[in-house]
């Protein structure tokens, strides 16, 4: 008898909320020995929000994976806790320097963003009752993605550039990062496009050293994606996102066609592209230089400063960490966005950081499990692409701030301060849960099947 496992989800949610509340209280004790003032307000809001999401899932996706929501809620909650901790450093007699970029209202805003994120999560589950509904909008979403990506490049710097990255749309006090949403739209577009074209793309051309090369005329799409990601790199100076999109495309084309040659072509293009970019653009070459010699004296100190601060912070935390509120993460510039993982490493230690990485890993694993379980090729590709791009994003940003790979500024899903990333991450979880719900749904009886297939009106 298949079960929806919604009770498991609730239990895990209660656990996640408890961890978040304890962490929040711990920040207050760590900073000034008192319970933080917002414990009740923020705590109840957060608990209420995730409970509402859980109730919605009971109705909208009763068969969905029971771990995805609690895992995402845990990360979101811990992100709020860390932003509160960073916001409070140096304020009201707490130890530390005031982080000028973090307003005293940052935590409140992050809670509001979480509410919006969970609303989007529920809305997507409500609107998209079957993954294949999305397939109809393949090209529409592709076009939307392109427009979203192009806007910051076309806008003047005053309306699109923050700290050198030209990836924003800024209107007055309101700003969004369109690429976070373009990422999701592109995943849908790639999945729809590749499902339609995969037979053609899988056609073999010549065979070289045991590898079936595709026909030259079929190289079009991959070259297009490559060029598009290079354009993002050049016009928006955003290496991370460009690598993310290209990686997602290559992996999805590989899954769709099962041809290793596409993977090799993609990797070759990537290596060539990054080498050329390193040579052509000084800021890219500098990233390589900082990565190879973060502590080298010849590096102008301000260039490697952020990375070095992050690394020294993590080293300072050691294995068990300094404890929330006891570390000095405020020394790392902009620690609340790209480098928030190093703040976790410093205060929760190696133990806490590994736990966080495992939570991310579990989300990816549950997503891939849904992809394997679902029969519909579109849903399969979509879930695989989304799971992989999440894994790649974690790899790029965590690897970047810990010195494993050259640093490229992208957000850490769920943890980094900012609404766009958080809302897009919740949307991603919604899509994965929708696929998972489809995959785990018990096959209906043949007679009932006739009736069930009529569900079209939601589209």
């Amino acid at each position, binding site marked *: 008898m298949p079960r929806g496992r919604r009770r498991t989800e609730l239990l895990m949610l209660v656990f996640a909320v408890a961890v978040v509340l304890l962490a929040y209280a711990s920040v207050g*004790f760590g900073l000034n*020995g008192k319970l933080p003032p917002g414990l009740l307000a923020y705590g109840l809001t957060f608990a209420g929000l995730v409970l509402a999401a859980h109730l919605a899932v009971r109705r909208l996706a009763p068969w969905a994976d029971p771990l995805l929501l609690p895992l995402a809620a845990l990360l979101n909650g811990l992100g709020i806790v860390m932003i509160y901790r960073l916001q409070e450093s140096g304020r009201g007699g707490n*130890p530390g320097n005031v982080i000028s970029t973090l307003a005293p209202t940052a935590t409140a805003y992050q809670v509001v963003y979480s509410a919006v994120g969970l609303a989007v999560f529920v809305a997507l589950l409500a609107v998209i009752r079957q993954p294949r509904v999305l397939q109809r909008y393949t090209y529409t979403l592709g076009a939307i993605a392109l427009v979203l990506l192009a806007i910051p490049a076309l806008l003047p710097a005053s309306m699109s550039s923050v700290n050198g990255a030209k990836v924003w749309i800024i209107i007055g006090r309101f700003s969004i990062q369109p690429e976070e949403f373009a990422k999701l739209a592109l995943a849908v577009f790639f999945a729809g496009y590749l499902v339609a074209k995969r037979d053609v793309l899988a056609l073999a051309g010549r065979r070289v050293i045991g590898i079936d090369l595709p026909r030259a005329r079929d190289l079009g799409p991959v070259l297009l994606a490559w060029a598009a990601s290079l354009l993002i790199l050049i016009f928006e100076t955003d290496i991370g996102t460009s690598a993310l999109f290209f990686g997602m495309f290559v*992996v999805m084309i*590989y*899954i*769709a066609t*099962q041809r290793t040659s596409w993977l090799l072509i993609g990797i070759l293009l990537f290596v060539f592209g990054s080498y050329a970019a390193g040579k052509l653009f000084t800021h890219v070459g500098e990233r390589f230089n900082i990565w190879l010699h973060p*502590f080298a004296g010849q590096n102008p100190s301000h260039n490697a400063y952020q990375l*070095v*601060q992050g*690394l*020294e*912070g*993590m*080293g*300072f*935390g*050691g*294995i068990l960490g300094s*404890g929330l509120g006891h*570390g*000095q993460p405020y*020394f790392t510039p902009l620690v609340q966005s790209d480098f928030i993982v190093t703040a976790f*490493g410093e205060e929760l*230690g*190696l133990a806490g*950081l*590994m736990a966080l*990485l*495992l939570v*991310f*890993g579990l989300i*990816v*694993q549950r997503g*891939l499990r849904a*992809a*394997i379980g679902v029969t519909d*090729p579109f849903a*399969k*590709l979509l879930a*695989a692409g989304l*799971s*992989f791009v999440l*894994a*790649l994003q*974690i*790899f790029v940003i*965590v*690897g970047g701030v*810990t*010195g*494993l790979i050259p640093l490229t500024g992208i957000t850490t899903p769920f943890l980094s301060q900012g609404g766009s990333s958080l809302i897009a991450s919740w949307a991603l979880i919604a899509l994965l849960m929708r696929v998972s719900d489809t995959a785990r749904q018990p096959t209906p009886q043949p007679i009932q099947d006739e009736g069930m297939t009529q569900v079209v009106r939601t589209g």
Partner: protein
Amino acid sequence: MNRALMRVSLACLAMFLLLLVNVNYVQAFESSGLAGKPGNVRVFNQQFQYQRGAIVAGGDTKIAESRLIKGTSSYRRFYPDGPVYAPVTGYDSIYGATGIEAAEGSELSGSAPGLDVHNLISLFTGKPKQGASVYLTISPKAQQAAYQALASKGYVGSVVALDPSTGAILAMASYPTFNPNVYTTLSGVALDRIDKRLRAEKSQPLLNRAINATYPPGSTFKIVTSSTAFSTQKVANTSSTIPAPTNFQLPGSSKVLINDNNEACADGNPPIIEAFYLSCNTAFGKLGIAVGGPALHRYAGRFGMNNPGLRIPLPVSPSVFPLETDPDFVALSAIGQFNDQVTPLQEAMFAAAIANGGKLMTPHLVQQVLAPDLTVTQQAQPTVLATPVTPQVAGNLQQMMTAVVQNPAGTAYDVNKSVAGVEIAGKTGTAQNGVNNTGLNDAVFTCYAPTTNPKIAVGVIVQGGGYGAATAAPIAMQVIRAYLGIR
């Protein structure tokens, strides 16, 4: 498509494994390396957020403590009697530490492994982290007397006092010295300027002469030469006579060894005790040749020389007795000249070993370490460093050293009057110095008191001080008087 999906899953697994391995590398293996990076602002900042442990002398005299800077949450180091204790405490600055501040740094800062449990308890009980207090063997009375004796006359030199029965260091003074309070500034620029100035000063105030400068021991080395002669049965007892000519033409050399002021030594064949309290160079030059270079080298080592590994816990520069076989060099080194080099600490160790019946105790500065909750995390246990001579030979030397001070003809008879009621034993030294002995003589004195049941052994070296009996011995008397409470 599932086969490709499985491969992609493996790729995701690989990415997460790489991340996990890398954060392990950064936070577990590289952690201390990162902490040691120059300009690590966290490590730099942390030291002022916690109260560093105090350094305490004589059980209750705080000679270094951290005080809260008014109106801030930062602490600053303070040395109440800075210059007096500078050779002991060293300093703790924002860029580095010396002395006990460095040697016991992990205890004082609270990061020593022995304090882990304590820190963990503090973490749970919400108490702020605090360093452990280091209690020293230093006696404030002896230390003050030693410092004043040097400073009042402006002598360049050092005094070290030991408890012969335990090896506890009672005083360790060096002059000229510095005020460690100037190193506690939180301004890097100011610190750099101060440090450069002190380093450039000709009088070398930063040099801890007690353990990091070496001088020729001069005649005080005759303690070792006599010990070797008794131990190797070249001389039977203190009344055995030894040849002591007025002039001694060194074999294989044009140099002629003479006694002080070119005097004759008694009748030219005195008992060894008389040659010792008169400090005849010819007698001990000949005796040195008789016992041989290798034997002298061996016994010098037993008395603590030629030991590059000595820590008190500050690292001690080795005192050197070179291994010689040429008779002329052996004769010179037997009277503490040629290439013999000793620290003032070594001088004190000569007397301490004899006073303690031939057992040389390991010199040490730290009596105990107390965690902030006053539990003892470290307690000094007196250990034997070496047993250079038997109790019987030590008895002979005690007799001879007592004669140096008590016999009216002894070289240090003059100081005997200054210490009423306490019998002192010692040996003077007046070491020739500089290229071709052009420098002023260094005054050297090593002694212990009282002669029965010795409580203190003192070594004094005054650079360019002239006669040991005239310059160095009175300093030792002041320290002994202060320590034993004699007015």
